[in-house]
């Protein structure tokens, strides 16, 4: 497949990439745009470490061909959620609850939780668990992640 020029809207900026249109969005973000906060964990859309927001919904970027999101969709990666010195409220909650172990799954967790809170600002514990269930963590930070997400629901914050 020959390479094409595509326009992507990433973290509020217009970015142009030259790529095989079937290349997974994950690798375009990482290798071409050097947005390395989005991680490769399995390549099969199971672990969730590659999650990004596409128009406020959490999608698994390892399973999206880049051409599918080159039509004006707003892509938000973890870099667009918050940066050191300007954390989003959810990022601050994760930090304060130490809702991580090694941190590798954390960007995906934050993306997924952000999407959840956008759709449902006051999720119950059960709703949090059901929505996050497809994001895997091996360090066992699940209880702290639930607490951090739940604290956002209590604060009435909206992403």
């Amino acid at each position, binding site marked *: 497949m020959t390479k094409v020029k595509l326009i992507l809207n990433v973290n509020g900026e217009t970015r142009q990439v030259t790529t095989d249109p079937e290349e997974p969005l994950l690798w375009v973000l990482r290798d071409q745009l050097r947005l390395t906060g989005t991680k490769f964990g399995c*390549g099969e859309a199971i672990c969730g470490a590659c999650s990004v927001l596409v128009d406020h919904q959490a999608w698994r970027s390892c399973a999206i061909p880049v051409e599918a999101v080159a039509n004006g969709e707003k892509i938000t990666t973890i870099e667009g959620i918050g940066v050191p010195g300007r954390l989003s409220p959810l990022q601050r909650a994760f930090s304060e609850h130490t809702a991580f172990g090694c*941190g590798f799954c954390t960007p995906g967790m934050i993306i997924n939780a952000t999407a959840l809170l956008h759709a449902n600002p006051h999720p119950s514990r059960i709703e949090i668990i059901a929505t996050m269930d497809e994001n895997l963590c091996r360090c066992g*930070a699940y209880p702290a992640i639930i607490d951090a997400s739940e604290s956002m629901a209590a604060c009435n914050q909206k992403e």
Partner: protein
Amino acid sequence: MLARAWRPVTRKNEFERDQTRRSFLTAVGHASLVYAFHFACSKKDEEPVSGVDDVLEADIHDAATEVRLDYREWLVVDLDGSVAAHTGRSELGQGLKTVLSNVICQGLELPESRVQLIMGDTELCPNDGPTTGSSSTRVVGWGYWLACERVRKDVLMLAARTLDCPEEELIYRQGEIFSTKDHAKRIGMGELGNGKVRLATVDTASPSQSGKHYQDNATLNVNAVAIVTGTQRYTGDVYPEDGLYGAFLLPPYHMHNTRLLSVDLSKAREIPDLVSIRHRRRRSVFALGRTYRSVQEALDTVGAQWKVPPRPRVFNNEQEIRSGAELVKVIEKRGNVEAGLERSQYVISETYITQYASQVPIETETAVAKVEGNRVTVWTGTQNPFLARERTARRLELPESQVRIIEMPVGGGFGAKAGPWTAAEAATLAQTAGVPVKYVYSRKEQFQRRGRYKESVLIDIASGVLPNGQLLARKIDIHQDTGKGTKEVYEASHVLTRLFKAPMPVRHSVMRGTSFVQTGYALESHTDVVAKTAGLDPVEFRKRNVVLPAFRPLLDACAEMIDFGTYQAPDDHGIGFAICNHGDRQLGAVAAEVSVDRPTGRVEVKRLCGAFDIGVIINVNTLIMGAKGAMIWGIGYALFEEVALNGHMAFTQSLNDYRISRFSAVPPIKVVFLDNQDPSSPRGCGELPVIPTIGAICNAVYDATSARFYTLPLTPERVKAALQS
């Protein structure tokens, strides 16, 4: 003059000395005051540690020749008083960097901005062994605490000389030493250097001299902001200029001695972004490409034909293990176990077998290698950078001095990243390619890893019990185990515990919990049957027969937390208990409530309670979080995790095939730690809670169904089958 007996200088030691000298001089640089510490352990070495009270002095340039393998932690103070600690240990997500940072900040009364940690870079750090076994936080963390105490004392002595006043007059405050009598007499710690290295030994088994412990404050995790913003860089986030992705074709077989017979590279060459694919020697095919996908797709198209040694068509694990088993050693022998069993009222004899398992870190093994002339640099997240250096050097036929391993944050280790192979493989590819290469293991490779799994262990266990419920005899035969996980838990007059080696059909890979997992599960599952046979409840039987009285309050705590005795479990619910002695005075008890759905065989953990005794508690919140994470891992071992092997093949290739604990598997968990005011060094708690969780869940299923299970995990199929029979 060094008052120690030194080891003879062998050729290997000479190399280490030269390496240590190079790293030392590089690391020390323009530093002023330099300490090199030897973290000894009187308990481990079983002999008193000598030289603890001395601080010896050596020339910086000569010091490294004297700084042999023993002084393996360096604390370096700059003229401006900022401090760098050079350690060969790694941050795996276990929080070691935060612990060491806290320890040194508190120990030397310095702000975070003045304390730097340099970890696992073989050019700048000494080789203090691998980061495994939950020991680093405990040993190295405590070691630095004691080291800081020594530094604070030592600088008073040095300052007394420089300021020309009595030591008693001086106090240390936040990196400065000043006289209480004359405030004009003050000096910064960093100004006390004299071109010499100060060598000191600390005994990590000893209590703190001040009687104080460091505060391990969970909210000060030094990596928190980087992690939640995705700016913490892991190996895969390193992008060397002109680098390519690369990978080897690995055999799909879990066996050794496979041979590549033929491949067809023509289809691979049509893949865009593939740069090269080659079949080199009889064993390997490798691909290089501009993208991860091109490399993986190329290797998928080669249609490899492999020659494998003859194997039975049916892969019967127990049969495999028993045939060819050889007695390796008698771990424990007391009395006459056969006679003891004969004299017992009840004899229960069972065989357990555990599953092959895989570590499944979320970050797959990754290495980035750059070869420039004869210099090799490898970035990788590993539990053992110095082993990676050695193996990489050997593979590339270069001296170790030409190889530098730069340790990156690790996206989960759990034993998967203790080996050196990824670094060596990436370096081999880089050497061949002539450009930097990034080797990212696919998830399939991470499962298969040339057949490295946590071993399946076969345990024959027989117990003899007297009418009053006292355990009289116990015989345990452990097959195909590394033998480390067999600490005494129950009292019996007649004991025989033996370890058998078996030619393992797969390569062993260490995995969280080590052999304590397998032996702990079998022992505790068996114990419940013994208790029931003797007519005692599981708590009562254990309290009566444990060899360490310290278990009793833990059992009571669990029983209370789960309302044992008063709680009326609904139908198909059960409650189970298990205990574990993890060695080094780490004790644990766990209680579980499960529900069993009979039609599907699905087991759900409804509640977990854990009580742990690990001596002094530094920060209970950190410990509780860690314990919960470990118990969640234990749920996986008990209910989900199993690698499917059959004949030659490992069928487990994807996260679809291997289930780990998810959010929905996590029940409410209550954890308590016994605060027994033990003044000695902290013992750590990384693996302990995993083990009794498994036994407790299995025993809860037994309580709910009366069905026996002799193998893990308790999958719905196994449970359904057991219930139907």
